């Protein structure tokens, strides 16, 4: 059963890695920010699965903190993007 949880956690980590593509490509800061938020949600699920897989219940507290605090970055993002961040061109940085 633990292997099953670990495999599921691995699947979610691969999801995060797939989402990194959006972070690298952009093009808008908002796209990247939403990707980071998605990672936060996926990270909560991954940590919960790891807590089961490793039989270490206190890892759930780390998941709790991610669920609670990820919104802080978005608030800061909104506060700082009352002016526009420059978009970067496609395909230039890969």
């Amino acid at each position, binding site marked *: 059963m633990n292997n099953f949880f670990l495999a599921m956690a691995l699947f979610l980590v691969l999801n995060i890695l797939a989402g990194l593509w959006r972070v690298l490509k952009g093009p808008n800061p908002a796209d990247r920010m939403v990707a980071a938020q998605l990672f936060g949600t996926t990270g909560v699920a*991954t940590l919960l699965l790891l807590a089961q897989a490793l039989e*270490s219940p206190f890892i759930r*507290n780390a998941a709790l*903190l991610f669920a609670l605090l990820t919104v802080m*970055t978005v*608030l800061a993002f*909104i*506060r700082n993007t009352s002016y526009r961040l*420059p978009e970067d061109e496609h395909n230039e940085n890969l």
Partner: protein
Amino acid sequence: MDLVFDLIIGLSLAGVSWRIVRAREHFQAIVLFITFGLLLSLAWTRLKSPDIAIAEAAVGAGLAGVLLMDTLGALSSPRERAKVVISLKLLIPCLFLAGLMAYSILYIPEDFQGLGIVVREALPQTHLEYPITAVLLDFRGYDTWLELGVLLVAVLGVLCIRRTDNIKGTMLPAPAEPVGSWIVKLLLPLMVLIGGYLLWLGAFAPGGAFQGGVVLASAGVMLWQSGHPSLGLMPRLWWKILLCSGFLSFLILAFSSLFYTDQLLTHPATKTWILGVEYAATLSIALCLISLVLGSPARNHENKGV
């Protein structure tokens, strides 16, 4: 399966950090750094260190993102394309050091337990139930004391740069936005509750002063972010007292222990003392971090439009 998971986490950590260095745009680097914190937290759980995973989660999600976003907001010029110049002079010592460290792994015995056994044997003397809290606040209390001093010095450094003696004076009110003021009602009570919960947990499980303090600091930063004036209403004297309370409680402990013994930082009613110091340290960590985030120089609200 374990090995595959660890390998993927390890490789993605290395890959993401490489992209952070190479990213030609600040914002991308920030988002990658946030992702890096998440992956790091996963790595710490795999290394069976829930304490560090919780601390990483709190700092990475709660404070690092806000600090970096504000820094970006204060910078006006876009980053020029980073040129990665690998200097041979540096490469060779770095590779040598990395080789030495990798080599040293061969010398760790298979059944090495670290200092865990020693700590567990001495644990009953502290009347605490959790070895890491015992190490941080009792066995290595001196280190923790000085770390609180480092935080205090960092706040003083901000004051020096800002050329003021009033940390509150450096605080600018954040623009009030509807989302912020709505979400603060929802999340602030939860943050205070969970900060207190982590602090309470520290006596017998992963958690403790630092993790609780960071969550409380996030609550304070959130209060400020939502444009709420309450942080600024706290009297300046209280602000100063709370900033110093962690360092001060260790100082009082060290001083008072000299009355009945020759050694610093020993205490008879251990658990009461330790919990007292831990609670004071939490408040002081929270307020120091709030001061550092809010008092950071180069915050430049005038440059922004609406």
